[in-house]
């Protein structure tokens, strides 16, 4: 299923904090990121991808287009999705994440705006956010897949058909099956192997300079 990236504008993070913002005691544990889609008509969201940076929990609220008379309102489509199983340790802290339409609590059609609410309850981290945010809507369906279909969708065991009384199989059937076998052979032959040959020199020469620091 293909997807198409939707151009979006990611506003700067706003931290939510109780009390005097200027006090240096304690760091905010909640951040909000607004994502708008200027110049894009309301669309159906397919996928959100991002790179995590020490965010422990993610909630997402969405504002959708409704009919002319009702005012638009915010709906929560993802609640406290866990990105870091232990907020105090590194697991999941810098992972790449994808969230799909089917994981959302509500219908994701006619999106106008998104609001990401990031939470990190642990006081151990100096900052947290999400990076490389990308929003996708569904693209045109593409028929081709990278690998043969029979690998991922194995057919159940077929019973061979009973032979006719005379004992001779239908010639057109035989020829089509031979054709199938030939096609399989061609496919196998076309896929070259990925084994290394094992040569470490260049044309027999392994006379080296010093090691390089790149």
């Amino acid at each position: 299923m293909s997807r198409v990236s939707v151009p979006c504008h990611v506003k700067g993070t706003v931290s939510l904090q109780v009390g005097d913002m200027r006090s240096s005691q304690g760091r905010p544990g909640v951040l909000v990121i607004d994502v708008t889609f200027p110049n894009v008509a309301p669309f159906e969201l397919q996928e959100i991808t991002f790179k995590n940076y020490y965010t422990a929990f993610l909630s997402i609220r969405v504002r959708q287009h409704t009919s002319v008379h009702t005012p638009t309102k915010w709906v929560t489509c993802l609640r406290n999705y866990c990105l870091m199983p232990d907020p105090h340790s590194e697991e999941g802290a810098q992972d790449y994440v994808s969230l799909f339409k089917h994981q959302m609590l509500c219908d994701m059609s006619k999106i106008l705006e998104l609001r990401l609410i990031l939470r990190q309850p642990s006081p151990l981290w100096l900052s947290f956010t999400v990076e490389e945010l990308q929003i996708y809507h569904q693209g045109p369906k593409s028929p081709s897949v990278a690998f043969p279909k029979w690998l991922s969708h194995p057919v159940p065991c077929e019973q061979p058909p009973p032979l006719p009384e005379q004992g001779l199989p239908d010639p057109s059937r035989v020829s089509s099956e031979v054709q199938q076998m030939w096609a399989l052979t061609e496919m196998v032959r076309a896929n070259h192997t990925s084994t290394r040959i094992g040569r470490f020199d260049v044309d027999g020469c392994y006379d080296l300079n010093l090691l390089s620091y790149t």
Partner: protein
Amino acid sequence: MPPEESDLSLIIAHVVQKLKGSSLYAQLERQAWASLQRPEIRLESLKEDIKEFFKISGWEKKLQNAVYSELSVCPLPSHPAAPPEHLKEPLVYMRKAQGSWEKRILKSLNSMCTELSIPLARKRPALEQKELLNKWNEMGTDEPDLSLFRPVYAPKDFLEVLINLRNPNYENGDSLGFRTHLGLIQVPLKVKDIPELKECFVELGLTTGQLGIDDSTQVPPELFENEHVRIGQKVLVEQDSAAAQQYIRQGSPTALRAELWALILNVSSQPEDVLYYEQLKTNVIQHDLLVDSLIYKVLLCFSRDTSVLGHFSYNSASPPKSYIRGKLGLEEYAVFYPPNGVIPFHGFSMYVAPLCFLYHEPYKLYQIFREMYVRFFFRLHSISSHPSGIVSLCLLFETLLQTYLPQLFYHLREIGAQPLRISFKWMVRAFSGYLATDQLLLLWDRILGYNSLEILAVLAAAVFAFRAVNLMEVTSLAAAEAVLADLSTLKVMPLLQIFLFATVT
């Protein structure tokens, strides 16, 4: 297609891609072609008949073992947006630290090269090649004259780097907080506690039979040992890797160990493996490498083995690069040095030594060592956040000690004997050279069985627990080192069992 199905398809495609280049693939192809002659293979049900033939002839089992091996070794393909570096190591600051460390090693090797005026690689003149070939078989224990060479690095240099690892996004303040870790490692990786370890190593529990405990002379063999040996023989007949891995968690009988390890590591003995080893030997004879002076025979071949380069896709380290003389910067003259990308450190040969007790044919010994290296040992000397990586092992060791032996930990810290400074060298060498050989092999059985190196950290903590009474009385680092200098009399399985399952916490 819903994501779970597409995940499975991705995994299948990934494994198929990996296996396509293997000799097993070529063999299966040949077998399939040959089977067409058989009467039970009919044209109209060709696919099903060949599959049935593979099942009966044992080829399906070989394929299953190969798939199991791929799944155990290689991490699954990560998120499509993730760059390849992310698969090697997901945390950016760890990648940077590994990069700096590698640069130091390269500089050290380059200095050695220029100071001693010895080239990185040199083609041997024909006469020297002939001499080397003649004395190849005697070469085993001969150590070359190493007086001029200093080791590229020693484990304690590496420890200093690990001690200085810092996450720039972590609160590293001086004030004591609820997460203050009193040990040397200051990065907050997730490590298991004893309840989690008990769950993970459940087969080491008090009610399960173990080799290393329940085969001692006082225990009648009918109680456990005989049956365990019988099951082991059955596992070998079935040739099932996954079953062997489960079986070996309770230890391997000495007579079956060589075959069991080969089955778990999916190392076969095909004629092409013998040929491959001979080819590597030829490469050793033709070119003399600077790094050769640091290691001995099997490792000479290891250094020439370019297939080892494959493991760098999931190792946070990267192979050093160089150019053919006079062609600096020209990519078509770029090569890896040494050919396998692994620069050995002081004591590297300790990874090979125990295997010499199990395998006598050089090519078999070689294959087993190479497989052990690309599955386990590489994690002991590269900086990564993997649960079996050396950083996690150090943190696990320190956390176990701090949590379950707080008095001992505090005392050692007070006298300037941070426990990790003593146990680091054990873990980096997977205890090789410190334990008696039979005990070491029982330990390495469990590394294979659980597909993890965490047991090394647990054993290190168990050793400290065992000698706790003596350690509480010492007043200096040197004295602490002396108490822990000789581990050759230790029995590892009782120590592990008591520490995990029988210590009152």
